[in-house]
């Protein structure tokens, strides 16, 4: 086994054998999973709000508000069924379920989904109701003024018999809503009730102006037929989710590459600092050449990065094909069909080599993390720039600023993956890649020199002295 491979193997095993490595592998998916499911879990586990409505308007507004709240919950359930159809069976199923719901309601929607994916239809549970409407207490109903009703509502809420009480008073265009609630911050309920009451006020005002209920319902139902079309769409015309998926995948890949490159380079930096501070580098230098040491370390940490990426990809893929097979199929088509996976691989290699070599070279001058922070501060600030612009690549991948920034080699490995799915001009793809490769070669040459000088240097080093040391190294 060559020295380079021995060093790479030691580097790889030194990290893989630690508990911290495996915890870090679990940590990111766990954080993503928890972030994604936390709102849903909270919704599922939250008790529905027990709401009573006291109507002092004399215009029968209370029952109408209650009806509007229930209708809103039904709409949420219908949306959830369409979302389940999309993730389980793709856009066609989503469209079919929507049409079935429009014709035959919830049951018809479920039947339509069962036609595409029976298991998903059986598994589907509508979201839990946010609000249960209960009758107000007799004293509240008998109250003559909002003040009297408020006293009763206050008692009922304080006694926990109810979570909220809505007192409606006033008339016609001057309706007043007093919401008593146990929860000081209940913006969702407040918003829902405001919308429901506001809608009813608008409806009744129009009715008073002579607009019939049928005309109003018909007017509310009016929506333009909208078609999103693009010559870049797979159909040649109509844009589907599948057409938009590459841009989303590109953005996700850009972010993933950025975090993987930064993580890998940081691991390498810490490893070099440990060896420098514990004087192991000098022993290594007496046994192997600088390219062998740096190459071995870069290769070993690359193995770590690929292990992490491989495990995440496998777990993610298994989750997708189990819970969203439709999306998994589309994703595979995007990654393989347009060759994106190969571009991503090339940019990962380029980005990793560029930053890993740079961090290793700088790490050789550092006895501690504090030393490294001084030297790497400016580099880290520059590295945040592509993150800011990556999300813009989803909406406007051809924006001139993105095109210009892609030519800056330190940004190329992150911005080009985010744009590549949107078919940027070939000259940009080839040009930026060549420029990136040249920069990688230059950084490796610079870092190799820096590594040799830094490994034997002592004392604190800032950017100026670092460059000075490297430049005069050959002077001997």
């Amino acid at each position, binding site marked *: *086994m060559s020295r380079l491979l021995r060093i790479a193997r030691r580097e790889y095993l030194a990290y893989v054998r*630690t508990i911290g490595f495996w915890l870090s592998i679990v940590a990111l998916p766990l954080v993503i999973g928890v972030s994604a499911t936390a709102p849903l879990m909270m919704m599922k586990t939250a008790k529905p709000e027990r709401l009573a409505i006291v109507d002092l308007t004399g215009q029968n507004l209370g029952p109408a508000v209650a009806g509007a709240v229930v209708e809103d919950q039904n709409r949420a359930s219908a949306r959830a069924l369409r979302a389940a159809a999309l993730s389980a069976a793709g856009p066609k199923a989503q469209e079919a379920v929507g049409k079935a719901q429009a014709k035959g309601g919830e049951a018809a929607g479920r039947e339509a989904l069962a036609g595409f994916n029976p298991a998903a239809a059986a598994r589907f549970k509508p979201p839990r109701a946010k609000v249960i409407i209960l009758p107000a207490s007799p004293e509240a109903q008998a109250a003559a003024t909002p003040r009297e009703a408020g006293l009763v509502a206050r008692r009922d809420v304080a006694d926990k018999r109810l979570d909220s009480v809505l007192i409606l008073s006033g008339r016609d265009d001057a309706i007043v809503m007093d919401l008593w609630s146990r929860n000081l911050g209940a913006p969702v309920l407040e918003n829902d009730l405001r919308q429901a009451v506001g809608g009813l006020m608008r409806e009744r005002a129009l009715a008073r102006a002579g607009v019939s209920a049928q005309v109003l319902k018909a007017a509310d139902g009016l929506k333009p037929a909208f078609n999103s079309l693009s010559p870049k769409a797979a159909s040649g015309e109509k844009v589907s989710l599948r057409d938009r998926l590459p841009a989303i995948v590109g953005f996700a890949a850009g972010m993933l590459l950025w975090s993987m490159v930064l993580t890998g380079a940081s691991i390498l930096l810490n490893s070099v600092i440990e060896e420098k501070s*514990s004087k192991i580098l000098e022993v290594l230098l007496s*046994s192997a050449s600088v390219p062998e040491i740096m190459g071995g370390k870069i290769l070993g940490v690359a193995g770590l990065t690929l292990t992490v990426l491989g495990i995440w990809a496998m777990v993610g893929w298994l989750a997708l094909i189990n819970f969203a097979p439709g999306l998994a199929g589309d994703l595979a088509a995007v990654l393989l069909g347009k060759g994106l996976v190969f571009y991503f691989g090339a940019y990962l290699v380029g980005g990793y080599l560029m930053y890993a070599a740079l961090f290793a070279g700088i790490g050789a001058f550092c006895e501690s993390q504090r030393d490294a922070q001084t030297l790497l501060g400016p580099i880290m600030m520059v590295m945040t720039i592509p993150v800011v612009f990556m999300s813009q690549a989803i909406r406007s991948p051809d924006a001139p600023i993105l095109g210009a920034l892609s030519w800056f080699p330190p940004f190329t490995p992150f911005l080009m993956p985010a744009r590549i799915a949107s078919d940027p001009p070939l000259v940009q793809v080839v040009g930026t890649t060549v420029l990136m490769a040249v920069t990688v070669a230059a950084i490796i040459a610079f870092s190799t020199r820096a590594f040799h000088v830094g490994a034997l240097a002592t004392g604190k080093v800032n950017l100026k002295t670092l460059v000075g040391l490297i430049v005069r190294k050959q002077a001997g």
Partner: protein
Amino acid sequence: MVSAVNLEGVSKTYDDFHAVRDVSFEVPSGRITGFLGPNGAGKTSTIRMILGLLPVSAGEITVLGARDATKVHERIGFLPEERGLYKRMTPIDAIAFFAGLKGVPEAEGRRRAKAMLEAQGLGFAMKRPIKDLSKGMAQKVQLISALAHEPELVVLDEPFSGLDPVNQQALETMIREIAARGATVLFSTHVMQHAERLCDKVVLMARGRKVFDGDVATARCAAPRALVLEGDLLAEQVMALPGLGAVTSEPLPDGGWRHVAVLPETSAGQDALKAAFARDLALRRFELKEPSLHDAFIVLTGDQA
């Protein structure tokens, strides 16, 4: 005698600072050579140049017949001044790893590591993380790491620093064993007793220059012999004795004085002793002191020491 290392007019400068100036010496094969000098004398820079870790600013170095030491790395064992090992590694893994870098196959490296650890009484610790070992044990592990590939040339930079007397003795024994199997040993130190006990040859550096190159006995000659006189006699009385050079005096804890008088090359001290007895000086003890390497070191390195 064939030399394992040969330096010809070697210099090393860092900007305007001359760390090593025009140094030439040989390290004879199969012998133990001490590389001596006070801190900052240029020993570590010279060792790094010998190992090919630093380029020379001027001159030429030949190591095991090669102009470029990196070409013969596998035949050299090196223990740096500031020791370090991978703290989470076990001794057996660490030794096998470094031996592997020197071309020893994995299985053979582990076999040698096991045997050498056991020989040094560290068999019980071979699978413990190095961070759990004492400093002395870790230093032994590092020395074994430098030796496991059975190098022809062993370069040790300040190998005794930080070791307690028991471990210093053990290290001296190891160095003798290395030389006994035919390897060349070059070690730097500023503790003369080790060099005096171990070395066939010493090279002495001061302010980046070589100030002596030869065997220990010759080195000692650089310092004069001295006559030590103890008793209730004053410095003026000693200075008045014939055949003595400069006199240094210090009080004794139990009263009286200890005088050390330099003997010129032409004087054996008898005249001074005869005169002392004749003058009935209150002499309690006298001694003819042969110069040590330490004395020579002080004389040769001057005020830098």
